[in-house]
């Protein structure tokens, strides 16, 4: 079944090492060194890493820059939140309301009956399926509509950004149906199990890391299969790929859908760990921030995207708390600096400066790997001055 002749065609030694180090950091180092509250915070940052990993595929490999990943993150997050909210709004819990049994914000907005699209979210199975399927369907529709008509690049970025804006205005405007600008808050239990205890926080953190690795391994599979090479080929020579007999729109739609599904999972993990979901994670600003995580980590590096999401968020919290004014200046400057000077992000710095040394060290430890380790295979980079 596996389309690879050798394990190293799927994961080179360097890549295996970087996955192992990441696993070590996320599964051992951080849980041992941080208290549960801080760890929960890291878990929330990691929920953005899902989006960033998806963006590596879409943007880094496929050349499709979406400024609307917040749409999918939001859909996943809201799907989870709607289920939890319905559980929290059982008739016993909401006796004081005019209409018991519906979410509190609906009652405040004088809605007396649960809207039809909320009904299915009584089922956890439905909610879990919706977390992945809902963003995928939306992405598929946008993808087919746009890519079949050969809309790409800048136009795609602007249109996805507009859709993110529309969705945010809609959520805020329809307060009675969606919870409005405050979002869906006051989530308590999952199947009767309190989601705010320390144990729950640990469970969600490890679940989040596990799912993140599932996404990373799927992304790695796509990257190393022929699909990955077609994406790279497409980025520069779209016509040539078309005249090699491929339907480009299908490939673009595919990575866009994969990125959306990842984002949906991330959104759901955020809801579980934060205990609420709001439109402030859906709109234009958060969507662009998600692209920033990806750019800082390195738009072609899956593992880099995870570090990017972690580091930018950690910096945002620590600096943002102590020097709120300086932070926006610093963030703006970092961003301009990365785009101008380091188009390959932190991963680029690693592969130019550290990777050769690490390789040398591994050679001494393990003996030389066979000469044909990377035979026939190119190493993708973003070149300065090349259309991206």
């Amino acid at each position: 079944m596996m389309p690879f002749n050798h394990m190293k065609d799927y994961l080179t030694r360097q890549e295996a090492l970087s996955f192992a180090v990441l696993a070590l950091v996320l599964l051992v180092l951080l849980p041992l060194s941080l208290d549960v509250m801080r760890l929960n915070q890291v878990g929330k940052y990691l929920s953005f890493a899902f989006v960033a990993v998806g963006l590596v595929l879409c943007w880094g490999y496929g050349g499709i820059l979406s400024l609307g990943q917040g749409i999918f993150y939001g859909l996943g997050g809201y799907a989870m939140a709607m289920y939890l909210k319905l559980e929290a709004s059982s008739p016993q819990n909401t006796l004081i309301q005019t209409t018991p049994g519906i979410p509190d914000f609906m009652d405040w907005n004088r809605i007396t009956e649960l809207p039809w699209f909320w009904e299915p979210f009584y089922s956890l199975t439905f909610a879990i399926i919706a977390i992945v399927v809902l963003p995928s369907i939306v992405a598929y529709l946008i993808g087919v509509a746009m890519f079949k008509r050969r809309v790409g690049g800048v136009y795609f970025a602007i249109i996805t950004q507009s859709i993110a804006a529309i969705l945010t205005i809609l959520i805020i405007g329809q307060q009675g149906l969606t919870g409005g600008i405050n979002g869906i808050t006051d989530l308590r239990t999952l199947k009767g199990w309190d989601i705010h205890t320390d144990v729950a926080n640990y469970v969600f953190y490890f679940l989040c890391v596990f799912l993140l690795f599932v996404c990373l391994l799927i992304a790695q599979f796509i990257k190393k299969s022929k699909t990955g090479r077609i994406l790279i080929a497409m980025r520069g020579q779209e016509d040539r790929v078309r005249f090699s007999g491929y339907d480009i729109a299908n490939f673009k739609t595919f990575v866009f859908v994969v990125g959306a599904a990842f984002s949906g999972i991330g959104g759901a993990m955020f809801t579980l760990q934060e205990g609420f979901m709001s439109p402030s994670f859906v709109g234009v600003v958060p969507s662009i921030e998600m692209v920033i995580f990806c750019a800082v980590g390195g738009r072609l590096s899956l593992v880099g995207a995870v570090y990017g999401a972690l580091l930018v968020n950690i910096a945002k919290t620590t600096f943002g708390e102590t020097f709120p004014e300086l932070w926006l200046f610093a963030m703006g400057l970092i961003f301009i600096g990365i785009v101008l000077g380091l188009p390959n992000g932190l991963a680029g710095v690693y592969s130019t400066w550290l990777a050769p040394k690490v390789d040398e060290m591994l050679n001494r430890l393990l003996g030389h790997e066979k000469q044909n380790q990377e035979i026939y295979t190119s190493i993708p980079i973003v070149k300065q001055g090349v259309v991206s």
Partner: protein
Amino acid sequence: MFSDFSTAELMAIFAMQGFAGLILFAVFILMALGLAIIFGQMGVINMAHGEFMILGAYVTYLTSTLFSTHAPDLFGAYFFFAIVFAFFAAALLGALVEWSMIRFLYHRPLDTLLATWGLSLILQQAYRSIFGAREVGVVIPDWLMGSYQLTDMIEVPINGIFVMCLALAATVFVITLMYRSRWGMQVRAVVQNRQMAGAVGINSAKVDRMTFALGCGIAGVAGSAFTMIGSTGPSSGQLYIVDTFLVVVFGGAGSLLGTVASAFSISQSQSILEFFMGGSMAKVLTLLIVVMILMFRPQGLFSLKVRR
């Protein structure tokens, strides 16, 4: 939604809302015109365009305070000075930005988007540090207040007409500049073939800088107009960037007349729908229609079929 009204009432509502939408139209035109030059002609995605507009708004605010404290007699005329100051302030900043970052990114259009986003964060924070987080508003001079009674049901706000004229003048100016002047020809030459333009002796670096500065300057003028419909805060510009990009894309990038037509249809439909369904739903519906149309006609309203 129309069935509750008689035809005459509907006509009056349409006309009233239409005139009320004039200022929004003017702001859209001026914003989009600047962006159409920067994006449509140069291919640069300037996410900080809203912040250039807000710079113009702050300059207008400063001018109005300056006049009211030092030259109260001339207060009625402050707006004309403000427009000029706003233009030059924004254009100067634009030239500086082009020199320090944009010129390195002409080959990477998507990256200009990210870099200018960083710039917009810096500018927003700068405004917050200098002018404070609270929104400021200008005092509109007396002669711009009030409205003109057209019929017993329809009245036209005077500032609306004034800003409208300002926007149209700017449009005519830009179109003339781009299509009738030697400089405009150089801009279009650089857009079509940078190397060739350089080879025939056009200083393409200078043309780029001037073009970018012009686009930003017009955004500054948009900021002056903006003070008439809203108060100015550090992040007010961000609210307009999505709409403005849609206006430009909907009109067909590269077509200045298309930009005007699309600014008109978007601002008018938003303003008219507002009467029937409230601000946020009107905006959702308008943007949704535009996005839907763009999905079926991605090249925008006006564009030529060209030989590849």
